[in-house]
């Protein structure tokens, strides 16, 4: 066994996570997901596949939804991260989407839920910004907000797997906050 640190393979990064600044010395191999879970004990973001294939680790980075398992933390210096723990802001009240998930029973085991929630928040912003999806009519005018009907929500949320099969309830919960 040698020392835990190898020279040149660690760097200092500063991130804001759910509004709070954190400065850490990170192993270059460390992805944002492990930084959240291991360094900050923010375990709401889940490790389902560790390869960008399930969406359970989805968080918002500077407002965009991303798979935190594929983001090397060292590349994120200066970024603003929002995780499921920060969706509700500082208050006691959960985010309206979290409330809608409870009302609709939009989860069972709960393991994909934080990713579904962060993904949905990101999705609503994308649609408002006029981002099309695979099912958007190509003839629809560019650059205008896209109305989210069920096919749109389903397509846009398809990067978040749910093995319990809560999909129909998740779509309803998202509709509740549109």
């Amino acid at each position, binding site marked *: 066994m040698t020392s835990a640190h190898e020279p040149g393979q660690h760097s200092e990064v500063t991130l804001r996570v759910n509004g709070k600044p954190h400065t850490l010395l990170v192993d270059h191999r460390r992805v944002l997901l492990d930084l959240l879970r291991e360094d900050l004990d923010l375990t709401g973001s889940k490790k389902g596949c560790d390869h960008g294939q399930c969406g359970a680790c989805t968080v918002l980075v500077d407002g965009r939804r991303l798979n935190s398992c594929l983001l090397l933390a060292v590349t994120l210096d200066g970024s603003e991260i929002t995780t499921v723990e920060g969706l509700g802001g500082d208050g006691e009240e*959960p985010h309206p989407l979290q409330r809608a998930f409870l009302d609709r029973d939009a989860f069972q085991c*709960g393991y994909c839920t934080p990713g579904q929630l962060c993904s949905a928040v990101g999705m609503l912003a994308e649609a408002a910004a006029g981002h099309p999806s695979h*099912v958007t009519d190509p003839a629809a005018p560019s650059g205008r907000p896209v109305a989210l009907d069920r096919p749109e929500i*389903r397509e846009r949320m398809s990067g978040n797997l749910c093995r319990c099969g809560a999909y129909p309830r998740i779509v309803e919960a998202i509709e509740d906050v549109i």
Partner: protein
Amino acid sequence: MTGTTTGTALGAPAERREGRQKVTGAARYAAEYALPGRTHAWPVPAAVARGRITAVDTSAALALPGVLAVLTHTDAPRLAEPEDGTLAVLQGPAVPHRGWCAALAVAETPEQARAAARAVRVTYDTAPHDAELTEDHPAGYEPEQAGGQPGRAEYGDPVAAFAGAEVRVDVTYRIPPLHNHAMEPHATTAQWDGDRLTLYTSTQGGTTVRSVLARLFRLPEEDVTVVAEHVGGGFGSKGTPRSDVVLAAMAARHTGRPVTLAHPRRSLPTVVGHRAPTVQRLRLGAHPDGRLTALLHEVTTHTSRVKEYVEHAAGVSRVMYATPNLLSSHHVVPLDVPTPSWMRAPGHASGMYALESAVDELAHALGMDPVELRLRNEPEREPVSGRPFSSRHVVECLREGARRFGWAGRDPSPGVRREGPLLIGTGVAAATYPAMVSPSTASAEARPDGTFVVRVNAADIGTGARTVLAQIAADALGVPLDRVRTEVGHTDLPPAPMAADSSGTASWGWAVHEACTRLAAHPEEGPTVRADTTGKADADSPYARHAFGAHFAEAAVDTVTGEIRVRRLLGIFAAGRILNARTAHSQFTGAMIMGLGMALTESSTLDPAFGDFPEADLASYHVPVHADIPDIEADWIDEHDTHLNPMGSKGIGEIGIVGTAAALGNAVHHATGIRFRELPLTPDRILAGLLSERRR
């Protein structure tokens, strides 16, 4: 709904009690206990399908930063011999299948552990392997037991009766290996305090984990604590302990530090079990009026060299239909493959795909409506056992489903409904799953403030166990629901059986009901009353106890690409008393979605050259996504059954997947006029079928 009145909690759509923790990220799962000094373990999978480890060179791994140890079969703690051979990890040099744990790296961080595992050099003495299932494999045999029942059931003279039948269907269906892939990978955090072991683990049954681990490490059970507060799904694969628990405990013992081991997603297909592939030959003989004269259901499947597991797919034919001549049998081939195990509705999901597809083929051969054909073969008693059914409302499910789906007036002609490039069809299938129950203990405590605490080491794997047990307790105590708290998921609580076989709520609930009923009737026995249903829950029943259901599906087949989109899916179930309308609905629809995946998207391959599954990740093993799922309806009919348990409930976690794939396959036949007899119904198969049909 919190319930401010009494006696009305059961059946109410009460909100999940742990819901708020789950939506805020506060709920902790097994790998999320950051104990002081916690380290991380990473397994080294064997890279051969059969052989012996001749050397393990750990020097490069140990030289890496942060690496604490590499456990091998020569230095890992010695275990007592397990009943389940898959747990005998690092106990010897033999490699029974590819992916078997060859060594285990432990390091300060997950990154360091992964790097160390990669740096371990294992040398093998490789032996020839056989990983290819064939129907005439010389090693195949008929198992004595399949799914707890005799491997073979037979009465009458089925072969002769089939040969003499006026209408005959003789068809073979194939289902590939399938993977559970719960969203939370199998994970354990282990900590030793002297000779006391604490395990935070992702399991469907903490009591079982404790007894198995105590035996393996030769400890008194009371020295093993198992915590499983939140479990990210299991679907059978976390029913009994898997290697993560044993390896984490070994690594923690070896290093003297707490250890977390979360199996990498790519390891799960080889180390946690899979739904075994089946080849199912169905022979149905019938009178022209539709009455069956013979039913033969013969299943060929595989198991590993580690232990015998039989995918008991032919069992459903002993329950479903009246027939004067029956054969239901299994044939299992031991191969050099990963060990198969339970996956949601083991046996039944596979068996009912084949049986209910064959029944549809028979309806077509008879020129009879497939709902009507099923009604005509309704048995008075359970065919093989001769027992009366405690309740059986499959007819009512079929009729109610047909009404809601708009089945009446359906044109039975296949391949005639076109919408541009799409072919549209509808299909139906029945469902069944046994209503099982096991003994459990539980306690109920009356608190001075007028509230009650119910304790049972149940596992809430997403079913809503905490919630429904509180509902059972509230009604038995005669108090409002919000005065009852439930504690589950910890071995300090009264021991309980696992969340499996759709029997969790019935088993735990019976004990909770008994404890609460006694506490209500005899408060002087309190403040805490403890119940044990041994001798009651496991008493022989004179009844055949099963849940039933019916699925109706509409599918559109794209003739350009062979892609199938499900338009509608309706399931109607008869499962005794439904104890929580909200969570029950979620379980039914969720299982139907897994059935949709089985029918259309999920496929794995046992690669004969290597003995494992190339579809090892979630990019190549296609779990359905949001876009695959249409509006799904699930509902139930009121069923009152007094022969089950004090709640009158049957299990509901699995029946939703049973029959879904057949309903979809039958809809695809109705759409295209082609019988596809191998799952899943992926574009390659559909397109090839459409083209060969066109050429005919």
